[in-house]
């Protein structure tokens, strides 16, 4: 069958090929960045074409075996269109931003090649409708993200950070393969939409568990969350892309698609629990971290946790709302962070970075307000939708309110500390315009999305978010009050204080800081697992060596036996005759007795 949505990948595939070729032919030509940008724009144009078309599901026979068709299936339903659109939009902004950011000519071909494949993988993921195409995209995402995180592999810590990412992702890949195989054996289909329509089976718990592990690794949920903050060693546009619309969203997206299966198997509580734990962990660590990008990474953990919580509450609309709004504010935060880092000699500590650009300051503020969830920015609608969905469950609701306060606190800590006047401010020369353009585009998108959310709520016929101002006024008031309190606390605590005192205080975090910065405990848990494996490896290794020695001894034994036997073959005819005679006598006796 003719599967036109796959054409969205064509410009990217072509551009990747060109980037690879130009990497071989001419390493320093600067043309590749424009080719990459053109490819993303072309893909976005095709995306718009797909969105204008109706929705449908398209199959391409890949191969068949044993009467079973292994198809590459893509679909263009609303969710596919949303994700495809987000990837294209943010992709354009990020590729523009990269023109300014990636100013090392010798690495450009590698960078753009990997970025294009990454974008391609995400677009394929966005339209995939069965496990085969999903898995292709899933693994491509993992590999390219590994290469991108380890992009500056010569720098300290980078290759270890990339390894942490790929090892976690590997767990997810293997689990995903296990889930696919189990699903196939259970339902004999790879197609998501056929799968959802199937009668529930009690055995579905196993594939769903494997699927959850895969999702948790990709979407950085507890206990697979650590790679996300380590991944901050990668280039900032990569972080911005990875955390906003791609990669980490892949896990949540597949959960949104397959949520009915989890509901049928009564596994939503797992989502709820893991999501809450991750969100709390993320918010706590974000408050105590000093690395400008790692704070944002922890905040992504929190965002993803909240989406999983929304799914655990079976509130798909809230999850989708969070999914959409998070894209814009997180991309904007990361792009701003990359800009200020570049302007400050690539410093990473928020206490040592000065913000001089007005556009960037404004973007940071807008994004921070949106993240905290204040009206009328888009984050408000996501958080409110989640809050309303959680309202019946008082425990979850309380925890969510606590997370709201914490997130307001940490993001304004980030903002206020960055905005403080720092004594040293040497200027760094870099090409600002493309980066500012990229930031400007995402800022505009943030504002447009806020407006869109506003209308989506206010016009009742498209009130998809199920927010009703009059009915839910109490919830909205409580939430807004708490968030404002968080912002105010951040103002009092961080804005008022002198930078030196603050820096000194945060160097010695004390007991409270240690509880907040609990990421190290997860790390030690990893080390315990690694230690157990290493101990097993040691044991088996020594066994193997002993086994090897044992076989040598068998060989030696054979030689010794040969030596011993050779004593009989001494050439003395008398001895031979004596043995022969003894044998004869023995035989005669034997026959007589018998």
């Amino acid at each position, binding site marked *: 069958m003719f599967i036109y949505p796959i054409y969205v990948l064509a410009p990217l595939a072509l551009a990747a090929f060109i980037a690879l070729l130009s990497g071989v032919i001419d390493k320093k030509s600067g043309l590749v960045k424009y080719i990459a940008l053109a490819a993303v724009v072309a893909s976005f144009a095709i995306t718009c074409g797909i969105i204008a078309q109706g929705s449908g599901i398209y199959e391409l026979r890949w191969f068949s075996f*044993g009467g079973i068709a292994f198809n590459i299936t893509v679909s263009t339903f609303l969710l596919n269109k949303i994700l495809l659109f987000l990837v294209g939009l943010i992709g354009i902004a990020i590729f523009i931003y990269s023109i300014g950011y990636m100013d090392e000519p010798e690495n450009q071909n590698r960078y753009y090649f990997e970025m294009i494949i990454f974008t391609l993988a995400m677009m394929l993921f966005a339209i995939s409708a069965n496990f085969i195409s999903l898995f292709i995209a899933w693994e491509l995402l993992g590999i390219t993200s590994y290469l991108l995180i380890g992009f500056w592999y010569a*720098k300290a810590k980078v290759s270890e950070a990339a390894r942490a990412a790929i*090892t976690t992702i*590997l767990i997810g890949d293997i689990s995903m*393969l296990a889930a696919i195989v189990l699903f196939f054996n259970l339902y004999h289909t790879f197609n998501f939409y056929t799968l959802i329509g199937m009668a529930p089976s009690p055995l579905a718990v196993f594939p769903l568990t494997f699927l959850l592990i895969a999702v948790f690794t990709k979407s950085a949920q507890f206990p697979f969350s650590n790679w996300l903050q380590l991944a901050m060693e990668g280039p900032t546009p990569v972080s911005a892309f990875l955390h906003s619309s791609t990669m980490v969203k892949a896990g949540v997206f597949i959960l949104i698609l397959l949520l009915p299966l989890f509901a049928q198997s009564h596994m939503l509580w797992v989502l709820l629990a893991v999501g809450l734990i991750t969100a709390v962990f993320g918010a706590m660590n974000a408050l105590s971290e000093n690395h400008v990008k790692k704070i944002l990474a922890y905040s992504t953990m929190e965002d993803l946790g909240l989406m999983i919580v929304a799914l655990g509450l079976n509130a798909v609309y809230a999850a989708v709302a969070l999914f959409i709004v998070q894209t814009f504010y997180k991309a904007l935060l990361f792009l701003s962070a990359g800009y200020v880092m570049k302007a400050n000699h690539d410093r990473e500590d928020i206490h040592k970075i000065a913000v001089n650009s007005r556009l960037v300051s404004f973007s940071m503020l807008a994004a921070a307000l949106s993240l905290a969830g204040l009206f009328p920015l888009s984050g408000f609608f996501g958080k409110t939708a989640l809050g309303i969905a959680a309202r019946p469950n008082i425990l979850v609701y309380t925890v969510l309110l606590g997370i709201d306060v914490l997130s307001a606190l940490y993001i304004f800590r980030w903002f206020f500390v960055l905005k403080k006047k720092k004594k040293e401010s040497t200027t760094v020369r870099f090409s600002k315009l493309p980066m500012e353009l990229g930031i400007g585009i995402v800022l505009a998108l943030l504002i447009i999305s806020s407006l869109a959310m506003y209308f989506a709520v206010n016009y009742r016929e498209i009130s998809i978010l199920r927010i009703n101002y009059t009915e839910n006024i109490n919830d909205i008031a409580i939430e807004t009050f708490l968030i404002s309190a968080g912002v105010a606390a951040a103002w009092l605590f961080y804005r008022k204080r002198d930078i030196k005192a603050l820096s000194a205080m945060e160097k010695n975090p004390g007991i409270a800081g240690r509880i907040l910065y609990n990421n190290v405990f997860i790390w030690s848990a990893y080390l315990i697992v690694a230690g157990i494996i290493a101990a097993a490896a040691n044991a088996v290794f020594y066994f193997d060596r002993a086994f090897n020695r044992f076989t040598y001894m068998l060989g030696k034994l054979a030689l010794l036996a040969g030596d011993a036997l050779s004593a009989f073959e001494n050439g003395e005819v008398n001895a031979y005759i004596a043995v022969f005679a003894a044998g004869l006598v023995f035989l005669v006796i034997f026959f007589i007795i018998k």
Partner: protein
Amino acid sequence: MIAGAYALVQEIAKESIAISLAAPAIALLLIAVVKEKFSRAVGVASTGIVLAVSLFLLAYLYAGHSIAISTSIPFISSLNINFEMGINPISFALFMMSSIVLFATSFAGNVHRTRQKATQFLIVLFQLASAGLFLSLNLFIFFIFWDIGVIAMFFFINSLGSESRKSAAMKFLIYEILASSMLLFGILMIYFYTPVHSFSISKIIANSGLIPIGEQAVIFASLFIAFIINMPVFPFHLWLPDAHTEAPTQGSMLLSGILTKFGGFGVILLFEMLPISRMFGNYIAALAVVSAFYSVLVLMRQDDIKRIIAYSTITEMAIVLFGISEFSNFGLYGSVYAMLSHGLLIAMLFLGAGSIEVIFNTRNIHILKGIVKNAGLVAYSMLAGIFIMLGIPLSSAFIADLLIFIGAVSAFGLAGLAPLLALLLVGAFLYLVISRSFMSTGKYTRAVGSIGADQRLAFCVLLFFIFLFGAFPFIMLGVFKI
């Protein structure tokens, strides 16, 4: 004219077996007489011709032609032994793999071009062995070519290897002679206990039910041990790491790439021939899982890149054995695909290990740092190799894994997923190696040598075929016709 071309195509297909055997046989004689510097050209020509024939056959079979290509020449008529050769889907997949690996081996792996004549002679001899073995339809012929392969490999290690090659070669020989004698014993048992007294595999399959159950068990045990020594599977694996450590790069490529597949192919034949094998399915699967985990855990303690890759061969072959023991089409053809994939992949990895040794003069992962800086292509090829080993989609390993594990879950339930955990451990460790030795934290091992364009070409050839069979699996699966 079109009719003429069609007739030609038919003719070539008919003679493909003869060409595949004649090319190395003639090349052997040629290498013996030509000067040292021409021997390489002869080797490349011989393997190239057979690669061309196998690609032609691939296209011919994919186009839907009948696979019934076979010949039978009386060999020792009084004992009912015929020189029977033929192509079936499984043997064709392995033949295809072996011709690609042999082609790459014939021109790459020997950077300094030392002892060309001996090397090429052994490569071509091994080519003869593998073509004869994979295409044989007769156990007697199978046994002859098996031993030719073993002897070629013995000399490869014994005369072309590194310092302590003698003991490694002897160890290899002892294990392989044990395997050979078990094989001969099993074959003779089959010959005497089948009523038709034939070595012909098709006749044995038709009559093997008539062998008494006790004798079947004995035959099964002896042949199975012979084949798993060769694969190798725990507890008969000890020869492989030592042989690889001492073998030259080309020897390693052929050893893990093709020689270990002799055993895999043998196990497939054995399970086809003896109905009793089905009784042991679960035990064999358990042995395979043990072997996989054992090799992974030992692998984690190795320093030498070649030993690491050698142990990963044991893991992969354990997964192959696991697939075969499922007794289903998914498992069987998944395993064949896994052998096809693994042969190409492991040849590339050993070529990479050899290149690293040439460039940096060491293979120790604790000494090597930042390979990617001075040997970019090698480092990225090895990285791609690791991804392939872990089964990324669009590589042939993915198709193999998918088929094997779909079969495994229907055969063994959840336990069928156990080898995936071994694969996970391999991956975790290999990523550690990549992170410490290939990428780096600012330190770089100094390059003392370089590899030529022919080596680079070999990487590209092997990767090309891995992704060809991965991205277009319907070609090979079309040949299988399942």
